């Protein structure tokens, strides 16, 4: 653990103007692509859902790499892994939980 409190974080990737601009352009392109996928009506319903899911996942990776500097050089792989596992667990609990609860309510309260 680093005990020194300084604003210079040696060994950590802090990004450059170029990397920020690349990340920004990628984020914009992916966002526009998501809207286009829905508005153009080029895909069927389930295809649209799938396309949006893929674009969202890529968008997350772009943010993590270009804005949060989660590069391969980072020396805190274990912490990254722990953070991802906790996040994944929480998302799983929330989404699975909502489906469980709302499905059950639907089955009980909406006859026919």
């Amino acid at each position, binding site marked *: *653990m680093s*005990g020194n409190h300084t604003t210079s974080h040696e060994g950590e990737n802090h990004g450059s103007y170029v990397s920020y601009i690349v990340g920004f352009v990628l984020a914009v392109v992916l966002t526009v692509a998501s809207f286009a996928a829905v508005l153009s009506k080029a895909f069927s319903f389930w295809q649209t859902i799938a396309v949006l899911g893929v674009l969202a996942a890529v968008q997350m990776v772009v943010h993590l790499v270009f804005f949060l500097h989660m590069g391969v050089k980072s020396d805190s792989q274990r912490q990254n892994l722990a953070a991802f596992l*906790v996040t994944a667990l929480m998302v799983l609990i*929330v989404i699975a939980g909502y489906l*469980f*609860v709302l499905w059950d*309510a639907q089955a*009980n309260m909406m006859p026919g």
Partner: protein
Amino acid sequence: MLGKLTLSAIPYDVPILVGTFIGVAVIGIAVLAAVTYFKKWGYLWREWLTTVDHKKLAIMYVILGLVMLVRGFADALMMRTQLALAYAGNPGYLPPHHYDQVFSAHGTIMIFFMAMVMMQALFNFVVPLQIGARDVAFPLINSISFYMTLVSAILINISLFIGEFSNVGWLGYPPISELQFNPGVGVDYYIWSVQISGIGTLLTGMNFLTTIIKLRAPGMKWMHIPVFTWTAFFACIMILTTFPVLTVSMALLALDRYVGMHFFTNDGGGSVMLYLNLIWSWGHPEVYILILPAFGVFSEIAATFSGKPLFGYATMVIATGIITFLGSLVWVHHFFTMGSGADVNTFFGIMTMFIAVPTGVKIFNWLFTMYKGRIRFEGPMHWIVGFMITFSIGGMTGVMMAMPAADWVVHNSLFLVAHFHNVIIGGVFFGYVAGLSYWFPKAFGFKMRDVWGKWAFRFWFVGFYLSFIPLYAVGLEGMTRRMNHYDNPNWHPWLLVACVGVFVLAAGVACQLIQFVLAAFDAVNKKPDALDLTGDNWGSGRTLEWSIPSPVPHYNFARLPVVRGLDTFHIEKELGRPAPVADLEPIHMPKYSAVGPVLGACGLLIGFALVWHIWWAVIVGLVVAFFTVVHRSANLDVDFYVTVEEIRADEEAFARRLAAAKAAE
């Protein structure tokens, strides 16, 4: 030009509000005049408002929390007196529409602007000192967090005098919070003040999690971390996992109200039940976010005042972790009556009951810490004993309501209201007040008069039982919450007792305020026995914050401490502190910055303008905020070095004080 804002939005025809406004205006003008008279504006701006020092931010958080406590408590007084009067045809003095705003404001303020604020005060003050850090990981973001909290508190108070506040309870359930049923600005005030303060809390969570992971003193392994910091760590994890859910649910509700979407409406494919799931999968972890740091405070106090190490440190940490996990698996117990089947309700009921296990472990750990200890019943210790009794009762009624069948009987009744006040006052509030009196000498370098703290406790303890045990009774007799008036003769005596109770609580609040005023008086008069010379005010401090001078120098630690185990300072007292090997070195510190206040002002402008649909002002606020951030990002002059001479002078002064204290013994 001014959107929906017209002169008619100002409630000059409501005497209670006009009176409040005059009172607030008089106090406000007096404070501003005093600052001007003593020529303190420059000092205030340079030393406090632009600060990035976690200790000063903590003090400002405490002041904000106390002001909001008084505000929220005034709402409580109004509700209890209304219910004591509004019986058998008497309408009371609060018409229903006003009463609805009072209970909504009470809940929103007490959770977001009293409890969360006090919690962040404790995080700010204690965590860096306990882990031997010189500041938090991101000091400027810490200042921004404070300003987001401050301006959202200001926004909620503006709603008193311009427009109205939400009248749908502290969680803004749709469909009644939708535009169709609530076309006024009340719910919008609620949405934006919660949203802005949520940004602040989220940044705090990120900041302190990073601080605890990255900035611990050399040698401090995970299992050497003091328990308060552990509870802060888990609370931060919960903030990061659940506050985004709150942000999303508020954003979706805002989209419904502002651009006519249908997330939670009755028609158009909306689902009210989705809102319940969203808001409570934030809301339940939220109460654990509040209570875990209180548990941490009690752990520190129990060990210090029993003169023993905390019993079962490892089980305490594990229990905290288990509560963190289980806390995110129980949200449905807030709406067993929603219409899910027995399997859903059983699952969440059992999960809820499980939480009593790690919490019980903690209670026994504190009891065993006290067992055969040399207990000193000073102020902070009173609160922990009162807490253990009160919180256990609250926990038991909680387990009762965890049974879905029993919950169907008391759902939405005053029994529920009594239960959550039982755990939040008896747990969270007692914990934070204990923490305030425990760390006060560390923050200011002088002591508060303990006798007033003890009286505050006595009034709070007795007043709590007088106010809320009657609510259990009327709840079981079927009185629903949020009721404005009633006819049932069985309820009336109970509600009279509760009204007496709230005045006893008021005496407790008064004692606390007197305690602060007297402490300031003693400090100004430099009363000799009020000074904390040694930095170890209670004489039995165990963790690092007691090893440094009080008040703490702005760089915290002249030399970074070397941690040799759990309760490092206690080890040093037993075995002696190792002589410093290295000479003093200049300390690298962040400069104060005006970015926090500027972004806060932008946040206030944006929030107010969004409430009243003043779109140009929203754009102005966003543009100014954007360029402030860009300017700051391009600014490289953000740090400085504390000179060795300054540190050495501080150290020598501290050594003289220590010698004087030793001679006085």
